[in-house]
């Protein structure tokens, strides 16, 4: 290696990893411009920014997936250039992906050692790998059977496996890309502890997240990106979450949640009694009033999504459901949509939108019959509907011909909302309305939800983010292990109250088996 180290690099201040003037251009779009970044040993450095701010591009440069167009990377002061992710790993930089990338049919140990299996001669040495996997999971504060099949694990457990897998590579820098996006507060807490342990070993951690309170809690330093530029880099102690939000958005985010008029006692629109979704939810009973926003809180796996999917006919379910006084039993989405009940999946990319199709196709997919003239689809009316949707829901896209997959998460959610609102549903069930969405778009989506309720529609919001439920809902039902275990309203809508119900810690001797 040629010794052309930078001039002023006295040994003890040399950062573990340093990026100087990193820039990246895709075609004509400059997505990163002159980013200077350092990661020191034994610190957690958070990168925050709205979607499209350039966080993931920056991460991909650091992890070797992209080459910077300009700028330089240095490790311990020496310039490096990665030919690919494997090369970056060889330099000790590992990335924990946001999505869980595991083979669902393999065991915990098989996944952890996938692609780097240990063997005795030609045969695999399962004993050693199982021991290694158990040890790796223990070091992360977990306890999993190495022979457990991954598809049977919870999301949080899978993430633990994923982290254990990544940490098996000798590492100096660990990058976490929005690791808590699909975790409940409880699981998040556990993950943050894992990250503190990693930091304590002198590893440098880069932490990307939308969740500012969490950043405040875990990070030593915070760097804020906006529109591909670095707008601020501070010690975390100097910033409050509100400051971070302001820096991210570039303006004051005074109020994230819209003002809501307490819904007066209006008529019941939806009444659910003793609804079962076999294997997921039992004996669910609740009512939903006109113009109301009803929240469903609970840990992941509590059966909230499955209950809603059962109600709209996406899963087999049984119970007494009345919609505006009429008994209904939906066997498929077609019938529930026709009755005016729309469900927006938590899995926007997998179940909500056709990512490889254009916006128009996506927008009208559920309501095509409204766009038929004779035998044909009326494309002009479709195009008009798209214009209206872009306007009404503030879908930000330079080009109306792009594919849905090219929209940012927030704009995808707005498109999905627009798609369902074309059906003019009276009951709207929104599952995780703001998962993976940046603050600016979040604020807008809350506003839309409030406006829909204001119009007299009834809304159910399923969410793992308690502040969001508390911020926009009139009442919140809490689910645990497939049952609705409580309802909170008014001043009882506090995180504390919800957590107690969701985890059952106040239920005496805990869960009876």
């Amino acid at each position, binding site marked *: 290696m040629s010794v052309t180290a930078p001039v002023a690099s006295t040994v003890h201040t040399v950062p573990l990893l340093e990026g100087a003037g990193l820039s990246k*251009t*895709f*075609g*004509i*779009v*400059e997505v990163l411009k002159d980013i200077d970044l350092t990661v020191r040993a034994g610190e957690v450095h958070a990168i925050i920014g709205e979607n499209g701010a350039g966080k993931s591009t920056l991460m991909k440069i650091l992890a070797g997936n992209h080459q910077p167009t300009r700028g330089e990377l240095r490790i311990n002061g020496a310039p490096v250039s990665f030919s690919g992710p494997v090369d970056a790993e060889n330099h000790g930089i590992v990335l924990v992906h946001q999505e869980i990338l595991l083979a669902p049919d393999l065991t915990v140990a098989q996944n952890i050692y996938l692609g780097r299996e240990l063997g005795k001669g030609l045969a695999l040495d399962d004993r050693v790998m199982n021991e290694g996997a158990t040890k790796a999971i223990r070091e992360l504060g977990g306890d999993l059977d190495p022979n457990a099949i991954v598809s049977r694990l919870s999301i949080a457990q899978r993430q633990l496996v994923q982290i254990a897998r990544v940490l098996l590579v000798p590492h100096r820098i660990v990058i976490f890309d929005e690791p808590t996006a699909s975790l409940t507060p409880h699981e998040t807490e556990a993950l943050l502890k894992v990250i503190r342990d990693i930091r304590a070993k002198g590893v440098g951690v880069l932490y990307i997240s939308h969740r500012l309170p969490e950043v405040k809690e875990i990070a030593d330093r915070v760097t804020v990106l906006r529109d591909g530029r670095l707008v601020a880099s501070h010690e975390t102690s100097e910033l409050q979450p509100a400051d971070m939000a302001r820096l991210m958005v570039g303006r004051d985010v005074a109020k994230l949640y819209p003002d809501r008029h307490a819904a007066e006692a209006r008529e019941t629109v939806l009444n659910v009694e003793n609804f079962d979704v076999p294997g997921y939810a039992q004996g669910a009973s609740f009512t939903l009033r006109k113009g109301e926003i009803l929240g469903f809180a609970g840990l992941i796996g509590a059966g909230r999504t499955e209950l809603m999917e059962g109600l709209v006919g*996406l899963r087999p379910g049984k119970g007494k459901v009345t919609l505006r006084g009429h008994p209904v039993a939906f066997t*498929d*989405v*077609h019938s*529930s*949509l*026709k009755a005016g009940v729309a*469900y927006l*999946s938590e*899995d926007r990319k*997998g*179940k*909500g*939108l*056709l*990512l*490889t*199709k*254009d916006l128009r*196709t996506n927008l009208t*997919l*559920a309501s*095509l*019959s409204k766009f*038929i003239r004779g*035998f*044909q*689809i009326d494309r002009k009316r479709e195009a008009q509907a798209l214009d209206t949707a872009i306007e009404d829901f503030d879908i930000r896209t330079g*080009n109306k*011909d*792009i*594919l849905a997959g*090219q929209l940012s998460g927030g704009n995808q959610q707005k498109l999905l909302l627009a*798609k369902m609102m074309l059906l003019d549903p009276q009951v709207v069930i929104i599952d995780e309305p703001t998962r993976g969405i940046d603050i600016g778009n979040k604020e807008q989506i809350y506003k839309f939800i409030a406006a829909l309720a204001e119009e007299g529609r009834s809304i159910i919001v399923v969410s793992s983010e308690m502040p969001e439920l508390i911020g926009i809902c009139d009442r919140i039902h809490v689910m645990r292990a497939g049952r609705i275990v409580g309802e909170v309203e008014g001043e009882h809508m506090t995180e504390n109250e919800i957590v107690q119900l969701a985890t059952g810690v106040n239920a005496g001797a805990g869960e009876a088996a």
Partner: protein
Amino acid sequence: MSTVATDTTKAPKTSKDWDMAAIAPFVALALLLVLGYFANPNFVSLANLTNVITRSAFIAIIALGATYVISSGGLDLSVGAMVAFVASLMILFMNSGAVADPMLMLIAAMMLALILGAACGLTNGLITTVGKIEPFIATLGMMGIYRGLTTWLSQGGSITVRDRELQQLYRPVYFGDVFGVPIPIIVIFVTAAIAAFVLYRTRYGRHVIAVGSNEEVARYSGISVKKVRTIAYVIQGLCVAVAVIIYVPRLGSTSATTGILWELQAITAVVVGGTALRGGVGRIWGTICGAFILEIVGNIMLLSNFVSEYLIGAIQGAIIIIAMLVQRTLMRK
């Protein structure tokens, strides 16, 4: 930004940028025509080209149905055997003398073929959707069943239209022409025009693409995935029936070996035409182009003396693999 402003090649891809993959089969067709001219100048004569296109009719029409099945995320391996089965039953019906008047008999036989085709397609569809069996296995099994039934019906030999008068009456459906355009060519374009209209312009067509593109999104949007897929198989069956209707007058008979490897040719035509084998993209005119390409390759082999015509199956097999490679390269851009 300004320095690279002229470089738009890597600008964000939009729905209007799929053109490369869509144009590729037509470019290939044009190149083949040029190649054919150099191999044998007679190749580009109107008579020869008309002849070639006429002969591509069976595969082209079957491949239209395959375009529906494949773009909805399915697959049908049984089409070749289905041709033999439907054709055999059609001829047996014509030989039964159930209808005295030859004209009425012919019309009844054609109707029967359409009904049988639709029924065969419906069977395939229901096995895959309601029976929840992988299309590959379901239609592989049905391929064996249709083929076996045909062999049994013909007792290993052939089944021939016996009635002379009926044969003469039926002949023009393959050999006749309207203003010089052979009827099979007219059938290709009329069928393709209807297929294109349904796929690109109607609600059902949009649903086919949605189901093939992402089954879950379709289901969550209130679309009955099973219904859409089953209907796609029925459309495939109807296309097979149309192909049978113009196939039977050509030889006036069928045998246990009728339609062998036609499934390979139909799927190849679809893939060469740019339809994605994983579903979600359907190109009707590309499929027609793909069918022409297959027939032209065979014709060039016949007219030139480079390659033995006995290698035609091997060449077609190679074409489908090459087409997949090209498709993947184009799609990645």
